[in-house]
């Protein structure tokens, strides 16, 4: 799994009621944000194809 998936799995929210408890750790958020520019380039490339 990806980084965010691993973090999510570790939180183990089993019930729908528990889903909204817990937040994405700041380091994961920063990592995702740092990955975003290259992902955006890829998506835009596909748009223009």
């Amino acid at each position: 799994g990806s980084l965010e998936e691993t973090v999510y799995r570790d939180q183990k929210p089993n019930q729908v009621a528990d889903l909204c408890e817990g937040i994405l750790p700041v380091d994961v958020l920063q990592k995702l944000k740092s990955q975003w520019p290259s992902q955006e380039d890829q998506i835009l490339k596909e748009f223009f194809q």
Partner: protein
Amino acid sequence: EEYRNATITTTTMDLLYRFAHCSGLNLIFGLNALLRKGNHEWNSSNAKLLLDYCSSKKYNVSWELGNEPNSFRKKSGVYIDGSQLGKDFVDLHNLLLKYSSYRNTGLFGPDIGQPKKQSQKMLKRFLTYGGKIINSVTWHHYYVDGRTASERDFLSPDILDSLISEITTVFKIVNETVPGKLIWLGETSSAYGGGARGLSNTYIDGFMWLDKLGISAKLGINVVMRQALFGAGSYNLVDSDFEPLPDYWLSLLFKKLVGNIVLDASFKSSENRDDRRLRVYMHCTNSDNPNYALGDVTLFAINLYNSTQIMTLPSILSQKFVDEYLLLPGDDEGLFSASVLLNGQVLKMVDDKVLPTLNGKLLDPGSPLVLPPLSFGFFVVKNAKASACL
């Protein structure tokens, strides 16, 4: 082989559902319609895996199948006829019936692109075979190509009016095949191809967005789904740092002030001129807004003139107090500003989680409604006692 692989695991689905559920959104999952058997029928085995998992988790999800199937041949080299897609939707519908969680869930489609000739033909054939089992007919709309769009396009009454004929076309097809079926804009924004840089993500996009919300409601579209909240390109409601852009604030204000009962409002000029540059719409005020009462009405107006326009309410409303919510560019960039002023105050988040209070400016009875050059705003007529809204 020109496309990336995107692997969706159960954990991806958990994350997606969590995001939607915890944000107070409804999740509609678009299944892959390009997975085909040798006889060209849709192969539902992969969808079944996902349904098994979502059902086991009791996830409340609605479903679509395929995205812009009219372009499948161009984009993927796979041609699927409208009638085949209709049959595929019936297969999906029958599959959903097998899950107690999804027996009464939403199924929407076919998410066709602009209703040009081939798409119209596809929509007709799709609805003939699958129209009865879907809950809403979905189609997509963009005014212009993001790579070539200009400032002028965003302010053109002709381009704004082009939506009317497209909606009319879709309604005609739907009413001829499945009369009365609900119609949604299942994906829409100002410009396709990721939006127009510097236009779709600034104040100027609000002219197209607000006019689209007004026209769509007036002509009977039930739901308008905005492309996009977050993502690649320029048409997103929040930027890459999750900061709200002008269309986010416009959407928020719209949701707080505008209810879903539509009134038949129009503007009559005192001069004999082209009124298409001053566009007005009126709804009952959102009954969930604690600041307003049943019977109140919300007028929203767009001034495409390069000069201030002054409107007067009809005599039946002229002795009422009005709350004004005027939106203007937030900085010196003018129409290309990435921020917006509400009644003179820049709108911004209080902190990462808290939205600001959106305050109206009280106008005395009889006050004219003033729209500065190239601007838009909302006017809530208090104590209007409109019979349609009581």
